[in-house]
């Protein structure tokens, strides 16, 4: 009988060869997050990228989907978990799994659609057939070919899965840290996006490719309120944002583990962006402290390390206030390219008309055609290209020193290190510190 290799092969640590060792020691020497100095080359070095694929992405919990995308048994979407192609599927047992989209026989992608509903995945090459739970249930001509085949050991490889208020996260099986530990203090803030009400996606995500290193948008959403008045300077003149210094007011928060959030409160005593009916709901779902913050929010940008971002944005549109919530992945597909996947999250119980409106507000401002997003991608692309062009100049560093030496607040109700002015870069420093720690560490038991 054909026996399986270990269902989840214990991956030896990749040997650290000379070249790798040299890279690591160079990073140790060049990268100084705490001092706000980051060398340009980390945004375009293929070797740094290779190291990230080994030591960052397999060592973090990564978002793959939202539960509302696969509500019914058999519903699936295909996604990437870091570099790995996976199927996120709700099995006939109602359980959500993240299955490696790689046939256990000889590696064919068993599912080639973006989404659908199925009882099983039939491999097109030799016809191995897998239930929507990942179980191998069919081997063609099993007796003639194998005599017997240990099907129980050849189900699709399953990733770790856990979820947080609708957000489905996955991780490499070897990762010891729980999602709860991984998110840590960030949960308090994630609640503002996903626990304030039962949230649902409005549909499949926009997807588009941008020639940017993945860290630039991730860091931007974690930390960078400072770019708003200039990059998005057209907004006030279009009457969408009140004025140019709008972005400054609020809180800049490092929630721990490299997760960062910026909460914009706008100018003092400005009216809430939330409809009255929703506020009641929010109050029920959140702690009083959370609710007190959410009430005053005008915008809130956040990144869950490494590459999952959230945004609440509001503006005045045709004289009326309108807000939306978006969630997006900056999925690296190369050292200089990301595939962006961007969803709109809405409160499940609001009227269809409101959902439509919030979705349109999103489309007009963020996302592939968004009037704000357009300028962001232009910046990230040029920074990436520039960093590639000065690769031979390790001395060219980027500056993340804003707020160095400022004191955090004592009294903020949420966890983490909180600063009172949004023009700050503590979050970027924390982001790169976490990044550096993972790269320099052995990344050990987290790999598959």
């Amino acid at each position, binding site marked *: 009988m054909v026996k399986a290799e270990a269902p989840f092969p214990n991956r030896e640590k990749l040997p650290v060869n000379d070249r790798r060792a040299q890279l690591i020691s160079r990073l140790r020497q060049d990268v100084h997050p705490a001092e706000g100095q980051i060398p340009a080359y980390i945004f375009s070095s293929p070797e740094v990228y290779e190291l990230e694929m080994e030591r960052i992405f397999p060592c973090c919990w990564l978002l793959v989907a939202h539960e509302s995308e696969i509500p019914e048994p058999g519903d699936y979407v295909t996604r990437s978990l870091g570099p790995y192609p996976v199927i996120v599927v709700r099995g006939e047992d109602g359980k959500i799994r993240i299955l490696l989209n790689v046939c256990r026989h000889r590696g064919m992608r068993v599912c*080639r*659609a*973006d*989404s*659908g509903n199925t009882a099983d995945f039939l491999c097109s090459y030799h016809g191995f057939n897998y239930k929507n739970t990942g179980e191998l249930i069919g081997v063609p001509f099993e007796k003639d070919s194998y005599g017997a085949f240990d099907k129980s050991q050849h189900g699709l490889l399953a990733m770790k899965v856990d979820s947080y208020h609708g957000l489905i996260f996955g991780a490499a099986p070897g990762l010891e840290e729980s999602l709860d530990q991984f998110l840590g203090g960030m949960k308090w803030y994630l609640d503002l996006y996903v626990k304030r009400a039962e949230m649902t996606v*409005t*549909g*499949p*995500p*926009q*997807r*588009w*490719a*941008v*020639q940017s290193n993945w860290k630039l948008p991730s860091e931007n959403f974690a930390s960078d309120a400072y770019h708003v008045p*200039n*990059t*998005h*300077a*057209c907004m006030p*003149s*279009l009457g*969408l944002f009140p004025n140019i210094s709008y972005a400054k007011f609020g809180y800049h928060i490092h929630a721990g583990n490299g997760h960062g959030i910026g909460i914009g409160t706008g100018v003092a005593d400005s009216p809430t962006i939330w409809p009255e009916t929703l506020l009641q709901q929010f109050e029920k779902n959140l702690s009083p402290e959370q609710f007190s913050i959410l009430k005053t929010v005008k915008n809130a940008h956040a990144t869950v390390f490494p590459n999952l971002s959230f945004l609440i944005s509001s503006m005045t549109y*045709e004289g009326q206030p309108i807000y939306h919530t978006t969630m997006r992945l900056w999925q690296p597909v190369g050292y200089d390219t990301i*595939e962006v996947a961007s969803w*709109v999250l809405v409160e499940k119980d609001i009227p269809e008309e409101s959902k439509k409106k919030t*979705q*349109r507000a999103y*489309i*007009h401002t963020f*996302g*592939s*055609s968004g*009037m704000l*997003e*357009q*300028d962001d*991608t*232009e*910046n990230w*692309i040029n920074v990436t290209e520039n960093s590639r062009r000065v690769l031979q100049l390790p001395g060219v560093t980027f500056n993340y020193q804003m707020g160095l030496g400022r004191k955090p607040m004592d009294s903020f109700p949420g966890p983490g290190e909180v600063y009172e002015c949004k023009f700050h870069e503590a979050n970027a420093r924390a982001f790169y510190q976490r990044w550096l720690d993972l790269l320099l560490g052995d990344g050990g038991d987290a790999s598959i």
Partner: protein
Amino acid sequence: MHRFELEREVAEFLYREAELLDSNRLEQWLELLTEDINYEMPLRMTRERGQPDVSSQTGHFSEDRRSLELRVKRLGTDFGWAENPPSRTRRFISNIRVENTADANEVKADSYFLLYRNRGSSTQADLISGERQDLLRRRDGGWKLASRLILVDQAVLGTRNLAIFF
């Protein structure tokens, strides 16, 4: 009106429109749109044969006259970084098919587009391919675009942003 004449007028309209967009005369382009224009680019998806591959839920564009005007206005400010310097674009319009509607003042016009987009010193260009399903309405002795549905031929768009129009 004779069918020839109609088809010729539609082609002329679409070519004229492409010319305005390709030469960055965006305000003039706006004049080609009706006040109540509906302008949509839904998502395309990779689905099993037979499944709908156009999303009825989400899209890359979902515009009315007001939002298109905002977009154009924005590009004209000093802070329209995404398209300053502008891309060099070319909208190849072909396979035009015109159909009458119940309303004598409206025609349906389907066409294919291949949008070539080059920026800066790159020798590569983004190619965006697709179909547009238009509704044209006769106004002031000429045609105006009353509705446009854009079917783009990628599930993952291969262009940095949609700071351009289709």
